């Protein structure tokens, strides 16, 4: 009854090969990441210190730290997400929970999907035209943040919609059946059960907003700007600022004779801050999942 036949042997062989291939591909994906991070940290090691974070670039950016671009990036990311998150999440709630399935909604959904795929340089031009010139914000942190917000908005809408759609329809029907309004249903059942997915989508946009160069260099980021060191409020909304991504580009390609550790250090900080935010997101998600109720 249970002897091994040639068929079972063949099946076992395929099973083994399949597993091996999947494992190899996984390693193939993880390995380069580890190599890159390892190499960056190795190269940047001599320069990494708290001082590096807290001093402005000096001597034509050939020495000093990255305080000014670091703070600039933080400003840009935080302000853009503060603008994009409420709009994006609320729009997604409307599209997923309220909107009827008619051609207007379909056009909007199509627009959202397509906007998510627009190259960032196009957003940059839009930001330059709309915020810097038309709205007369000038090249400023506000204009750059708005541009980043426009860029991240469609992705936030798409990911939020997905998180909302993952809540079973039966829950909504059960609420409607007992006389709850749509908003009561959303507030008490849909949102609490999709919040972890929504937050994940939003936080993934942190890395995107922090990493983009094109949209901000057209709209508010400058080559060099020294600010007061150690003051978290050294930038104003209408100031121009530096940003890590742009700074990295500048010191690697535009300035001669930069010590090698400087661009590596900048890259490590950029990567590190994104990783920290993602790690926080994961921890928060695990916490919310533990509270999730079905």
């Amino acid at each position, binding site marked *: 009854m249970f002897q091994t036949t040639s068929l079972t042997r063949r099946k076992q062989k395929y099973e083994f090969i399949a597993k091996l291939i999947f494992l190899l591909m996984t390693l193939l994906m993880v390995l380069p990441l580890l190599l890159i991070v390892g190499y960056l940290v190795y190269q940047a090691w001599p320069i990494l210190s708290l001082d590096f974070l807290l001093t402005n670039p000096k001597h034509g950016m050939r020495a000093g730290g990255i305080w000014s671009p670091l703070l600039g990036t933080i400003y840009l990311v935080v302000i853009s997400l503060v603008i994009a998150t409420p709009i994006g999440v609320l729009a997604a709630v409307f599209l997923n929970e309220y909107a009827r399935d008619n051609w207007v909604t379909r056009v909007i959904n199509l627009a959202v999907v397509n906007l998510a795929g627009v190259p960032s340089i196009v957003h940059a031009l839009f930001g330059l035209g709309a915020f810097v010139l038309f709205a007369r914000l000038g090249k400023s942190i506000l204009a750059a943040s708005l541009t980043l917000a426009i860029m991240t908005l469609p992705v936030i809408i798409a990911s939020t919609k997905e998180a909302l759609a993952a809540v079973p329809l039966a829950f909504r029907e059960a609420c409607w059946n*007992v*006389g709850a309004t749509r908003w009561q249903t959303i507030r*008490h059942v849909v949102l609490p059960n999709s919040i972890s997915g929504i937050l994940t989508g939003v936080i993934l946009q942190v890395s995107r907003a922090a990493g983009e160069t094109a949209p901000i260099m057209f709209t508010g980021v400058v080559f060099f700007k020294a600010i007061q060191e150690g003051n978290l409020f050294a930038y104003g909304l209408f100031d121009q600022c530096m940003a890590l991504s742009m700074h990295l580009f500048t010191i690697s390609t535009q300035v001669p004779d930069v010590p090698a550790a400087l661009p590596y250090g900048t890259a490590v900080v950029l990567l590190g801050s994104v990783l920290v935010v993602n790690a926080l997101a994961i921890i928060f998600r695990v916490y919310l999942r533990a509270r999730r109720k*079905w």
Partner: protein
Amino acid sequence: MSASMIEIANLRVRYRHHEVLKGITLDVQRNEILGIIGPAQSGKTTLLKTINRTIDNVPGAVVTGIVKVDGTDVRQVKDVFALRRKVGMVAPLPVGLPLSIFDNVAFAPRMAGMHDRRELAEHVERCLRQATLWDEVQDRLDSLGTRLSGGQQQRLTIARALSHNPEILCLDEFSIAIDPVTTMRIEDVLKDLRSQMTIILVTNLVQQARRLADRTAFLFNGELVEVDRTEVIFSDRPASRQTYEYVNGIFG
């Protein structure tokens, strides 16, 4: 007060080009159990959705004809949420909301504005007792409704449907996912509830309709084949040959 609790006249529902209900005319008397039987796709669930107007939330559904609840045309109702509270609805698959057992039952009263703790606690206990679930869950009202067994969740769903003091209770194939013992317990509950409310029992178990219903309607392919006293439907000579064949398992 009108004679019938629910009056349905020439009710038609279509989803896009597919007509699901093709002109139903049917009355439901006060304090009766009306059984509705019929094979899948005959429009039973849709019929229930028109009564509490959750059909409004189904994309593409077009409703014509008249559905009156307690003498009022449901489409003239201004406060549709009050209408829905008047109608308790139990879905085929038990749906424990992802809330605690207590909150599951307290959900509807809270949404309707009841916030007094003592009042809520008494109300929840009464509903859970009515659904014969109280003895099993009274020690763990804080645990999740979704962690209960299927049969318990279905009784929780019934407790929730009773929590907004409905005058009508609609059950849509409530026994589909639960064991026979629990089914019998719920059937006993329904017999007790008959004195307090009007019950519409959609079921695919014809014997269930035979056991419980005062009158039984046979729905087939979106049409009401016949409605009569349950004894007549299950006798040798119902008005329609189709009915006879369906209840005797010859087709369907």
